């Protein structure tokens, strides 16, 4: 059990971007307004070569957030000890300013499914997720941030609202939270809840980082809107509006732009980061 008090974010309360190797030279040349970078931990788990050399180089100039996408914290079975050791290793040599993972599962029967799969919000899930986070924080030796998922369906068996569930996990484990505002908008649209009410209920004091990304619009069997968290385009306007609403209540936070598919030229990504910088500037001190 770690210290329960909320911690100030170690990343700067400024825009960051998900790092893509094709932007390496652009970033070294002129990263403004981007002040920090996030990497997917699993992409830097090779033994050597260019990915690790680039990351080492960038970490000398930028604050780094290590974002895991494969630990399966919500998995019904034990955490993969080898994978946990790899996360510890990367945090040890890189000494990142932040480490985060997802409220999701992705491994079952030793098969990794490469997607963030949904969880029922029940007492049993809560106790399992809290145990796994205790284990992660103990092994990695630092506080982690837990990210809210984007949901396409709901479990009939759920007895907690997602915000209640995250609040309870954070209280039990002392972990911080990563608030993905696009995920809030996507889930709220898909499950027909009010995204503003979700933000009102979210324990914002525990938020160490905010994520923003683009989504695609589809429809379900009944013609209802079904948003897909694709990270393949610019952040949608209603998500920026929801960000403003969030920042008014949370105060400034590190904000990450995620763009993982159809990766744009640096200028287009930097323009999204500029928009995040503007949103931060509007927040009263």
């Amino acid at each position, binding site marked *: 059990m770690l210290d329960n008090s909320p911690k100030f974010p170690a990343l700067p309360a400024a825009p960051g971007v998900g790092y893509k190797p094709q932007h390496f030279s652009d970033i070294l040349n002129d990263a403004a307004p981007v002040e920090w970078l996030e990497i997917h931990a699993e992409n830097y788990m090779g033994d*050597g070569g260019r990915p690790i050399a680039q990351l080492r180089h960038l970490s000398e100039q930028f604050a780094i957030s290590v974002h895991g996408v494969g630990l*399966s914290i919500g998995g019904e079975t034990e955490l993969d000890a080898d994978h946990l050791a790899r996360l510890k290793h990367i945090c040890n040599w890189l000494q990142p300013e932040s480490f985060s993972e997802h409220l999701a599962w*992705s491994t079952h029967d*030793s098969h990794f499914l*490469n*997607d963030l799969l*949904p969880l029922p919000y029940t007492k049993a899930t809560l106790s399992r997720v809290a145990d796994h986070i205790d284990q992660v924080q103990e092994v990695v030796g630092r506080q982690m941030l837990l990210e809210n998922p984007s949901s396409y*369906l*709901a479990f009939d068996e759920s007895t907690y609202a997602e915000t209640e569930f995250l609040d309870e996990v954070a209280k039990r484990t002392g972990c911080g939270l990563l608030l993905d505002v696009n995920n809030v908008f996507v889930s709220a649209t898909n499950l027909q809840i009010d995204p503003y009410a979700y933000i009102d209920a979210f324990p914002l004091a525990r938020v160490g980082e905010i994520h923003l990304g683009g989504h695609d619009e589809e429809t379900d069997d009944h013609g209802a809107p079904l948003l897909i968290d694709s990270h393949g385009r610019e952040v949608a306007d209603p998500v920026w509006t929801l960000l403003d609403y969030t920042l008014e209540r949370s105060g400034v936070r590190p904000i990450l732009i995620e763009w993982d598919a159809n990766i744009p030229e640096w200028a287009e990504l930097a323009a999204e980061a500029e928009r995040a910088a503007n949103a931060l500037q509007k927040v009263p001190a």
Partner: protein
Amino acid sequence: MNVSQTTFHTALLDPSQAVPGGLSDGLGQPAGSRFSVYRNNVAVSLTEALELSFPAIAKLLGEQNFKGLSGIFLRQHPPETPIMMQYGAAFPDFLAGIEQLSHIGYLPDVARLEQAVRVSYHSADATPIDPEDLQALAPDALASARFDLAPSVRLVRSSWPIHQIWAYNLEDGAPKPTGGAQDVLIHRPEFDPEVIPISPGTADFIAAMMRGEMLADANESAQAAHDTFDLSQALGLLLSAQAITHITTGDD
């Protein structure tokens, strides 16, 4: 109704199965096609991971065939690690086992070449020896020498012209493959693996050195099998490829 991860997982990988009960759209209606978002994410993301690692195979098969084969592969061989740069090590052998592909005999070996390039790309950095360390050895010491090769050094042997086929599919202006067996050496001077065709004698020699044999023995067997084998050329190649990281001689 409670949905276990076993139930979810099974339905995820088998689109012919019904969507598990107990999942809804948030208003109490069955989840239906919403479950397909997860099915699709899994299949598409794993197919993309394979395509990234096997670009020449993707080109050779064409988009539709590659997608279809990936769909079969990912269900037979789901990843056993979250490290996607390692996914697909079983893909070459899988391709070799597909009867409908048996008329494209070179496909598994081209996949083995791509797999070796990928492993080389992510392998540990290593410091090569100073070429003079080798050149300065007395004849007896040279004969007894064993090499440690850099982790990025890989050898792929084939009875097909795999280097030509690989280059033809990935490089602009590469000539059309003309046939014949090809052995290929992969090495990584700094960050980008280089892929070079080598003679069968040189491949025999390097394979023997990789197994930890003494230079004299490796040379003798390469000479015996290929009378054109040239030891000094093979050593020059390994030095210029920065492939040797340590020499152990009989005296050590």
